[in-house]
């Protein structure tokens, strides 16, 4: 692999943090076969029980059950820190087909408490594949369940709303004992769990070639090549960006670094004063897990950043936190938006983009103080808030994921808009 500054730096950081459990190989031939598998159960707080096959680590978990409708990109979903505290059900039934391409991981480990699938492929078929999903789950001690009717589960969540559940291999579970425990579960202050422990730097690319080939120009050379990038110009060259990591997906830093920005990643609890003192050209508020209202101290710091006059771009949780910091409200959606097919309308241009989304909370547009912020993007399906423009400020935030991974890359232009904002400042 050719040298790529930002990537190597980060990779080095990650390697120190990767949990060093042994990879357990399982007997592939018995996966998804009859009779010989350990049973597993998914028990929902409404008392519904799904019986399936146990996959991944052998342990019982209680978590919030959510579904994701992406047809590809299960690894990006698994490694998205925003899923911390949740168990993810993939609505697409065939998972693991192309195995695990470790370079596609969006963070240092996998985060969901459990993984719920219809069928796990017994082969991992892709030239980049390093291991199977089963191996990955075991490596990170994450349990899961396969062979259940994921569509039926999705329908329940759609009708009744997101709920908690338990995954267990214990056939003698006691519903009466379990249900109160399920109801009591909350994701809690999960941002603290996922944020980086210390500040680190992702260096910006000095030339386009460091990013790997521009998509479309890749040529087969007989060796394992770098992933292609979409970036066609280094418009962020020399810009310093502070990225607040509330559970950031790697591609946020990478998207900026590939445009030339030097990105300093800060732990979530970093005081605003420290960031302002570092004099960044712009501040990026990342995505992250959980209820934004749990992040009281972070919200207070963001308020200070709001007042700093430094251009700010917020994504997902970052978007919600900025809203809360400036007096707006958020609420929990019935079952959220998780997938790669959500239409978002840019109110400035009227254009519709298909976006990658992962959120259970949303900013309440009805309670928005239009003097502070106005809606900039809305969801075409349900009209919910997908982005805000802050009045009189160099601040804009979006609910969805311009960094994609998994999902459509249509909104990458927002990073350019952010760079433009820094440029004009």
């Amino acid at each position, binding site marked *: 692999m050719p040298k790529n500054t930002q990537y190597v730096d980060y990779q080095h950081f990650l390697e120190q943090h990767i949990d060093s459990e042994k990879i357990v190989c399982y007997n592939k031939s018995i996966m998804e*076969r*009859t*009779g010989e598998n350990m049973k597993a159960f998914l028990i929902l707080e409404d008392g519904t029980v799904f019986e399936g096959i146990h996959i991944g680590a052998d342990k019982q978990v209680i978590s919030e059950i959510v579904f994701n*409708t992406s*047809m*590809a*990109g299960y*690894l*990006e979903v698994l490694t998205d820190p925003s899923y911390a505290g949740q168990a993810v059900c993939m*609505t*697409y*039934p*065939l998972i693991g*087909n*192309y195995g695990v*391409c470790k370079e*596609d991981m969006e963070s240092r480990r996998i985060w969901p408490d459990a993984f719920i699938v*219809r*069928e796990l*492929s*017994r*082969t991992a*078929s*892709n*030239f*980049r594949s390093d291991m199977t999903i089963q191996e990955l789950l075991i490596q990170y001690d994450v349990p899961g369940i396969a*062979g259940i*009717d*994921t*569509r*039926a589960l*999705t*329908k329940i969540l*759609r009708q009744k709303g997101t709920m908690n559940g338990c995954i267990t291999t214990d056939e003698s579970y006691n519903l009466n004992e379990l249900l109160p425990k399920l109801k009591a579960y909350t994701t809690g202050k999960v941002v603290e769990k996922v944020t980086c422990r210390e500040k680190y730097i992702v260096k910006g690319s000095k030339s386009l070639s460091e990013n790997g*080939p521009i*998509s*479309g120009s*890749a*040529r*087969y050379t007989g060796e394992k*090549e770098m*992933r*292609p990038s979409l970036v066609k110009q280094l418009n962020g060259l020399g810009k310093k960006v502070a990225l607040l990591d509330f559970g950031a997906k790697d591609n946020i830093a990478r998207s900026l670094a590939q445009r030339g920005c030097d990105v300093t990643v800060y732990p979530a609890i970093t005081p605003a004063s420290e960031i302002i003192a570092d004099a960044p050209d712009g501040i990026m508020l990342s995505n992250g897990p959980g209820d934004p209202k749990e992040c009281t101290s972070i919200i207070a710091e963001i308020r200070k950043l709001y007042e700093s006059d430094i251009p700010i771009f917020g994504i997902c949780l970052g978007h919600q936190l900025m809203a809360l910091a400036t007096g707006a409200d958020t609420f929990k959606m019935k079952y959220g938006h998780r*997938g*790669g*097919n*959500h*239409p978002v*309308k840019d109110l400035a241009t*009227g*254009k*519709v983009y*298909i976006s990658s989304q992962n959120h259970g909370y949303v900013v309440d547009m009805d309670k928005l103080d239009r003097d502070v912020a106005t809606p900039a993007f809305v969801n*075409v*399906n349900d009209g919910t808030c997908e982005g805000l423009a802050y009045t009189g400020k160099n601040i804009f935030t979006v609910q969805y994921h311009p960094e994609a991974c*998994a*999902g*459509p*890359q*249509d909104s990458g232009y927002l990073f350019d808009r952010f760079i433009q904002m820094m440029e004009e400042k």
Partner: protein
Amino acid sequence: MPKNPNVKRVMVIGSGPIVIGQAAEFDYAGTQACRSLKEEGCEVILVNSNPATIMTDKEIADKVYIEPLTVDVLKQIIIKEKPDSLLPNMGGQAGLNLGMELDESGFLKEHGVTLLGTTAETIRNAEGRQEFKDLMERIGEPCAPSLLVENIEDGVNFAKEIGYPVVLRPAYTLGGSGGGIAHNQAEIEDILEKGLRLSRVGQVLVERCISGWKEIEYEVMRDSAGNCITVCNMENLDPVGVHTGDSIVVAPSQTLSDKEYQMLRTSALNIIDELGITGGCNVQFALHPTSFEYCVIEVNPRVSRSSALASKATGYPIAKVAAKIALGYTLDEIPNAITGKTFASFEPTLDYCVVKVPRLPFDKFITAKRTLTTQMKATGEVMSICNSFEGGLMKALRSLEQHVDCLRSYDFSDLTKDELRKRLTVVDDQRIFVIAEAIRKGISYDEIHEITMVDHWFIDKIAILTEMEQALIDGPLTAELLREAKRLEFTDDIISRFTGKPASEIKAMRMENGITAAYKMVDTCAAEFEAATPYYYSVYGGENEAKETHDRKKVLVLGSGPIRIGQGIEFDFCSVHATWAFSKAGFETIIVNNNPETVSTDFDIADKLYFEPLTPEDVENIVNIEKPDGAVVQFGGQTAIKLTEALMEMGVPILGTKAEDVDAAEDRELFDRILQETEIPRAAGGTVFTAEEAKEVANRLGYPVLVRPSYVLGGQGMQIAICDEEIEEFMAVINRYAQDHPILVDKYLQGKELEVDAVCDGTDILIPGIMEHIERTGVHSGDSISVYPAPTVSEHIKETIAEYTRRLAKALHVKGLINIQFIAVGEEIYVIEVNPRSSRTVPYISKVTGIPIVDLATEVILGKKIRDLGYEPGLQPEAGYYAIKMPVFSFEKIRGAEISLGPEMKSTGECLGISKSFNEALYKAFIGAGIDLPKHKQVIITVKDADKGEAIEIGRRFEKLGYTIYATRSTANTLKEAGVKVRKVNKISQESPTVMDLLLGHKIDLVIDTPTQGRDKSRDGFLIRRTAIETGVHCLTSLDTANALLTSLEHAKDEALTLVDIASL
């Protein structure tokens, strides 16, 4: 953006006759588009030469012209109807090319007609090879290195430069006609020569061979505001090298990581945006299997076969949305009809796996090469939906109705490992069966992949199926194993074969253990939103979503499965009309079908759609859930008829003609008794099972005899035998598959063939009209030119036919439709066959007589009387028009296929010529079929001895028209003796220049070659006919057709054709 108020009268161009590469999908798209336009208050003027389509119904369009699709005709219609807009991208390549020609000539501008949807410039950029390459280069999207050549020499030189193998793609042809992969100079010369001629612009693209790469397609939509979405992506199991129409295709892609998926998606959106397409578009990619390198293969700026597949696979109605976009709407303004809640500006997400398998015509053309190339050969396709690939593949295989239902259906077990390795290099329709055997014999995935380039994931899935086969063979059959086998969609029949237990026992074991099919919904959104449209597929294991409904009486309408020669789009027309008629009568309608190209599988035709195989077990599962009040089988061709017995066993009442009466028409002995009772003569004959018996019957009757299996459509396996050897040959062909029913051997009578479709209510009959075939008996009715009203028979014959029809319909207790074929020998009428069901000619006769036969038949089935429906029973008065149905063939697509006409049907489609005058109708029909003479005024005539006499008159007529006649020795002598000027030309086996050189010289308009008997491939005649077809020269094998063509040529005038609006008949 709201609807453009200037669009009020829209002309829509259809795709013409069904040919390989352009099938029912355009009727589906066109119908959806027309309905969408009408919904928006537009007046629709429709032009399509194909009478079997639903789009040419007066319910679908306001003005319907079933006229030849030529620029001249379209111009005339534009002048007459004064449309303000033209929608050219619903009629496939044929429609698009016509729209382009009209635009390029400035005609549209002159007449104030706006091209809706994509602009002409966009089409040029997408379709012109060089323009497209330049554009891709400009936006940094890679294409394989290529060069557009206009002569063979340039092609050969470029191939030398980039290295063999190279792919050759002629510009502006459909289904990749004339293309191929060349591995050396001889091959490139051969393919280029043909491709250059077939290309509308005489250009062929020579490009780097990317065969073996993954073939991935994206269906993309874009509106005029520049909003882009992808409806679906699809992955071909067969890597690049096999036309996607002939490939097994899955949706969504299975082996792409998100990085690859999104890379290609972004590329597709960039391309459609740069092209400025408004509407639907298909982008095909080749992706290197072990890198991120990809190439854009091609872009189709219109609805296509793939877009029909994507629509059915996702529930997203591409053609409907494309039509709305053409009217000016943006994607976020168009509601998603499936959910009713979301909008067209989203991307469908699937929570199932879709498998498409092509229906290839090698069972029809047994001499043809089975090899699959970049030249499409499939006549149709089936689609299946399941929550696993294995299940999807198993369902799709049994949907084909080609004697396959599992991966052991083609037996390669006697091949050794080495033989299998060799066999794996052959790319044909049996490849997955060979892969399965290779897995069974222990050839490694890696090795199979290296040879076939099929992805490991697919190989593993095939392995899972072979492991299940073995597990069933090894036994014991536990409930768990059975559950897993059903999850993989092994039918009870297959399980029975592998376990040796009777199917009934398997079924009982299933019921005992609660192993039953559940139905899931196709909802575009993976259950994220509630869906309003009940569109179902089955799975084993899981919650059943099919809601039981009991508010109205329910009818099950069984569709006709994949489009194949002999059972085409006509039966979909009938199924759809019957569904509508039942709906109108207050029934809840349920369609079961597996063909993604058809109107019947559109989500809003029936109240419920089950996208399922049409086998007894699959239908029974639906019946168990729906408990319909009745099923109707007479509209779905042989596919539906074959299910009659099974439905009765399930206790489902058959609406209309009873099963035993259907049997009586097919069963020789029963039918003979009925003929005796009704005093209707037929050709003498007998039923046999073996060749010995057949020979005995034949000798008793005296040759020639007609040999055919019963219970088939399209005369499959039907032959005229003149000697014992031929009987042996034909019987061997028929008995390749075990026959459930006896084989019929009849005395061959030569005469005029006549045909009727009638509706019978049990008492009275309604005969809309009598059709007469131009070709004498011996040519399958589907391949004959059919004329309504019958022009050359006496009143006496017509009356006799009406009387016989009445007697037969009554004797068979027909309730609904009946189709009867007769022979007239002099004034004597014999019956050939009776089909108590809908037929191929129903749409055509309905349209030209204005009598809605299917609707009437449905009313009759429901108990109404013909008299109550406002019709006087009996033979209806003849219309004031001649309507001539002309068969259309796709012989050029099937290498090695015998083209001569006979009792077995070979045509893929048809077109209509309609006019007040017989000669003009005939002329229109020929033009519509693409036989537009003359160009060079040169004809080759070579006929068998028996035809020599008739050939003289034909020669004379051509001579009079100023043609130069070439003939081989004996034909030439005959003509010369009769005083016809003729040039003698050598046979192929003789020294050069021969008839072959003449054909290759491209100066010939027409070949008339009547074949000697038998299927001998090596004969001169076969080579002449194949060469003619492959060099694009029309070839007639029946003197009757030749005479008709002459009549048409003799009366052809330069003046404009008269136009007939079918909707106003």
